[in-house]
């Protein structure tokens, strides 16, 4: 087996200065944000509950070789939001940050109006948190619930409402 280490070096950086540190890494040549995710360590007794993980790769565009990877961990709490968005460094971070907010409720300080990615806006709670029960049910939304169309996911983007 040759180089199959897809993790690279694992580093921790303070969440308060994540943008500066990530910019530095970008300047070092880490040009691709491979993944951005989060782990909820609710029961692990860590000082900060969540670990937000940035996975970066230095990709040589001319040869297509992976020149090295790094896994950056930021320990954060859900409140107050301290992480800054990395979407100005790697545009790929835009949707991934939305997913982290959607699934874990970890906010990014400079994205106050961040939208959920996979779930609908009326969804209460954050599904991948360890204290979100697997069998929890959510109230029905939309026209079938009898509610008049006024809910954001049905109205904001399009001018007319189905069935009205």
């Amino acid at each position: 087996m040759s180089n199959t280490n897809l993790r690279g070096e694992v580093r921790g950086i303070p969440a308060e200065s994540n943008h500066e540190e990530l910019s530095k890494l970008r300047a070092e040549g880490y040009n691709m944000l491979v993944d951005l995710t989060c782990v909820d360590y609710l029961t692990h007794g860590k000082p900060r509950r969540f670990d937000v993980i940035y996975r970066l790769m230095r990709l040589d565009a001319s040869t297509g070789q992976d020149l090295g990877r790094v896994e950056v961990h930021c320990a954060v709490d859900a409140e107050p939001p301290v992480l800054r968005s990395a979407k100005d460094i790697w545009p790929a971070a835009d949707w991934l940050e939305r997913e982290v907010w959607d699934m874990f409720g970890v906010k990014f300080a400079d994205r106050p109006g961040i939208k959920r990615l996979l779930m609908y806006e009326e969804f209460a709670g954050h599904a991948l948190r360890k204290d979100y029960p697997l069998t929890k049910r959510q109230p029905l939304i939309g026209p079938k619930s009898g509610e008049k169309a006024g809910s954001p996911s049905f109205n904001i983007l399009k001018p007319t409402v189905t069935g009205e």
Partner: protein
Amino acid sequence: MADRSQKTYMLNMGPQHPSMHGVVRLVLELEGEKVVDVDTEIGYLHRAFEKHAENETWNNVVPWTDRLNYVSPLINNVGYAMAVERLANIEVPERGQYIRVIASEISRVTDHLTCVGATAMELGALTVFLYLIKGREHLYQLVDNLTGARVTTSFTRVGGVKGDLPPDFAEKFRAIAKEVRLCVMESDKLLTRNRIFMDRMEGTGRMSQADAIAFGVTGPFLRSTGVAYDVRRSHPYAVYGKLDFEVPIGSTGDNYDRYLCRLAEIEQSLRLIEQCLQQIPEGPHSLEPKEIKHAFEIQDAGKHGDTALLAKYAAKVDQTLEGMSIAEQSGTRVLDRKITLPSKESTYTNIEGLMNHFELVMWSWGVKIPPSETYFAVEGGNGELGFHLVSDGGDGPYRVRCRPPCLFPVAAMKKLLIGGMIADIIPTFGSINMIAGELDR
């Protein structure tokens, strides 16, 4: 800006538009037929894969992975199983690795055939779709022979695969490869120099190399922009290091290049399977429990000073012993070699197999992996399919993160569509090869 708002209008495309192969909603702002703005809404097929995986045992997650990219389920099975093996630090016998590569490459061909066929159909070339789906059908039958299912394959186990290759697999594959090559050749003749097809594909959905990298795009999409990044080449996992294959790349990064890349990759995948079938060694396909000795045997050997045995064999401790719950003792149940599910034949025909199976699937009795964290990726149909796994020492994952390769080009859709015509959305969306099961998980 006021007059602009009068000129443009909104149009919903999807979530269930016939030419969107998958449930995704595009909210378009159009000026005539020109796309001024686009907003992509996903999540319509969210089935909480990651949440469910946290509540399953390590092996039980495998069937969930079938449902990620459902046109190449075997690659997902392999990717997940390899990630768990990386976490548990175990190595599958070589034959098992070859079988996994064969399975992955069959799936890659079915993925590309579906993608090219569906794109062509949406552009009106129904004949090509039928040709390619005919080729895919042959491969699905081969998958059926191999795994017992066409799509919901669940082929891998932690520590190996479900079973060996069927006896006549190589001959069947040769016959089928001929058929698939014929289908691809016919489609190539019908499409590659077809004026209508080229007009729709060439120059549309173009993405620059820098943009593709910035958006985290991988797979055929990235390769069409000229970057020869392929996980199989950069990080040759399993036995890819021993095989000879080319990484086809494009130059302009438009839909036409992506189509050509996919066609070329089909041929490379078929070549890879042929090489595997030539090279595949005899031997076990999975880790076998024969390298386990009962704890008392090891203990006796130790008393006689034969300590070499201690490292060589894993100890099997009677699960009913009280000592199992003591922390120091739990390490005795070294699971390195005791984590593969027994074959179905064994499970159904003898009590040892049944018990072994039962012990492995029973809640909190199965495979336990020491607390650790890993990331492993394979080259999926659409690019780097990664799994980030966290274990807290339990019998199931604490966290599974699947890096869905097609999320990244879908996230970059604004870049691809704005400024184009509404008709360009169809080929561009087709060549992204969005698979909702993988995108929404």
